[in-house]
């Protein structure tokens, strides 16, 4: 009887969570950041040489893990200091602010013991015994070894202390009850490396898997979320949606995934944020800036080998586009897009991506391409390619119908195939991004 009550209780909480998710996904408006994007200079701390000393090897290991784990993408807010946190993450359950993980003893983790840090990384429980929300990627970080965790903590304790308290989270019931996370853990943890390693896998493949499923936590964005905000089983790396951006399919699908990419294409992209096929913008731009651009060549190669082994996702059907929409879209494209992407969308290698056979353009969910047109995008700068090339926002210039037409045209030209986009799709995202009123700089607009 007690068992039965427990099961009923679990089901009630689960349905509440699912209800909250759907209420959120229907109503919530996740706006764009209002300030400038995060500082590139802050990433330099991860390249600062660690002097020889008794524990130099451990500190260097910890610093490298901080690169692999992409800590700064979240633990750095615009105009903030490295590791001080305070970046608001829009999740389907509310806004979660990253914590201060600098060495500050009061606001950071300067006083944490290795046991406490291991528990946070492995079980998602902080030094006060509170459950951490899985926006902190402990479901992936739990795959690091105890030695790795000790090294990372030792390194973080050498970073400059920052006396800064990030804002409190803004979450909905029941996710604002931290104990609900305990339940989440039971149902939602992603697969561990090694669980599905095929016989005879190369050491390089195994290394790639360990990074991707471990510190790299790639599937947090690139696997679709289920209603509980966890990896959808059976859809690993088939592309997800984060912060109104599409994280593309990473499987061997030739249309939406990495099927056409060579291993060198992937390593170049991870290294520089650009290659002849694509440019890393949005959240992936941050990943390049704060993580993959600072990995070793061997690790980037290992990631590429692993990703190239992912079986292609099932190709989704697409509906045919209205020829009138294609014609209007072609007119917009020829006038508004060719300055950079050029006629026939051939692009400029490593500068402006070609749009033919472009995976982002052909994602089944058009949110990514619409986001880029509406809000613009910045290519993540990196030590080898420090210029953060940007595409401007076209929200002021193009109507919803024009954006729908040009997106439909792009998604169905030069070898591309994807379902058409409607003006209503654009209007919905424009409203979510709070761009109904164009956000103009001081010196634009009617005086």
């Amino acid at each position, binding site marked *: 009887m007690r068992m039965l009550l427990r099961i009923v209780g679990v089901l009630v909480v689960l349905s509440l969570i699912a209800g909250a998710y759907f209420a959120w996904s229907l109503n919530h408006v996740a706006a764009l950041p209002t300030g400038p994007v995060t500082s590139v200079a802050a990433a330099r701390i991860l390249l600062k040489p660690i002097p020889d000393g008794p524990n130099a090897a451990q500190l260097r290991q910890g610093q490298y893990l901080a690169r692999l784990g992409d800590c700064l993408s979240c633990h750095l807010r615009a105009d903030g200091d490295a590791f001080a946190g305070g970046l608001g993450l829009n999740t389907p359950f509310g806004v979660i602010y990253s914590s201060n993980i600098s060495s500050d003893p009061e606001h950071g983790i300067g006083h944490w013991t290795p046991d406490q840090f291991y528990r946070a990384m492995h079980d998602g429980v902080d030094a006060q015994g509170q459950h951490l929300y899985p926006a902190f990627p402990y479901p992936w970080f739990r795959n690091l070894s105890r030695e790795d965790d000790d090294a990372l903590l030792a390194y973080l304790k050498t970073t400059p202390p920052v006396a800064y308290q990030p804002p409190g989270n803004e979450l909905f019931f029941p996710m604002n009850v931290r104990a609900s996370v305990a339940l989440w853990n039971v149902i939602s943890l992603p697969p561990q490396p090694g669980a599905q390693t095929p016989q005879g896998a190369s050491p390089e493949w195994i290394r790639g898997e360990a990074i991707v499923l471990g510190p790299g936590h790639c599937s947090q964005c690139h696997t679709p979320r289920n209603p509980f905000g966890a990896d959808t089983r059976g859809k690993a790396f088939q592309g997800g949606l984060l912060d109104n951006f599409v994280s593309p399919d990473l499987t061997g699908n030739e249309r939406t995934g990495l099927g056409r990419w060579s291993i060198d294409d992937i390593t170049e992209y991870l290294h520089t944020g650009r290659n002849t096929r694509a440019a890393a913008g949005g959240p992936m731009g941050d990943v390049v800036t704060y993580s993959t651009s600072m990995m070793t060549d061997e690790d980037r190669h290992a990631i590429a080998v692993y990703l190239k082994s992912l079986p292609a996702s099932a190709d989704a059907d697409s509906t045919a586009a209205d020829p009138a929409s294609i014609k209007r879209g072609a007119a917009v494209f020829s*006038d508004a897009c060719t300055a950079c992407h050029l006629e026939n969308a051939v692009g400029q290698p490593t500068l402006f991506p070609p749009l033919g056979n472009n995976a982002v353009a052909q994602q089944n969910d058009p949110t990514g391409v619409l986001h880029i047109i509406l809000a613009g995008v910045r290519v993540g700068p990196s030590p080898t390619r420090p210029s953060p090339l940007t595409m*401007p926002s076209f*929200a002021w*210039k193009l109507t919803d119908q024009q954006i729908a037409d040009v997106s439909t045209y792009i998604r169905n030209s030069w070898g591309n195939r994807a379902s058409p986009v409607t003006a209503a799709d654009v209007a919905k995202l424009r409203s979510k991004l709070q761009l109904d009123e164009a*956000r103009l700089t001081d*010196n*634009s607009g009617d005086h």
Partner: protein
Amino acid sequence: MDKPVPGRRHFLITSAVVAGTGLAGAIGATVRDGELGAPPRTYKGGVPWTEGQADAPPGVSGDDFKFFTPAERVFIEAAVSRLIPNDEVGPGAVEANVPFFIDRQLAGPYGRGDHYYLGGPWPKGTPEQGYQSRFSPAQLYRAAIAAIDKYTHANFNGADFANLSDDDRDKLLKSMESGAIQLEDGVDAKTFFAMLLQNTKEGYFSDPIYGGNKDMAAWKMIGFPGAHYDYREWVTRHGEAVPFPPVGFKGRPGWNGEG
């Protein structure tokens, strides 16, 4: 009215200057980035960029006149329609909405003279020294329109400039251009004519986003394609007509399936 009271004349010009100053004070309180007097800014850490923010051209919205009074608007239409008349070559300045363009220019930073030094002293300069007036462009238009009408009242049987024949308007404009006539109230006829002609050309040929060049008619007339970008494919295609229709910052009819 053949001998205006000096006090009234003084009042007119003073109120024009005060009204202009008030306008500048009210609108010019916010100095915008890139405008004269904007404070320097420091950026650190990386090239600044904000998602969703656009550096759009300062276009106009609406179709109401913000600066000209109804009477002044009649004057401007009568003047610019002689500078660029509507004929078989192409549309006239009025048809291309030039008066509206000039109105919005005068209501904004250009009209306020944000780009000029307008303090004293005000001796007559040489042409090489550029604009040498104590009036902002908006103040100059207001004072000049009044002064020209005063001139035509005195010399054309009390008629407003706008009621003169085409020939008389042409003659008057030409004598302003050459500096042959003297206007009252501190208005230099030659300076005003140069500004009016310049602004008329600007309104006729500039991007429609600024209110003039209606339907890109001026561009169609001269075959200018507007804000189209990539011509690389056409560099080696000699003797072929480039098929791109004119396009403005905010597009062209083809973007909406028209034309």
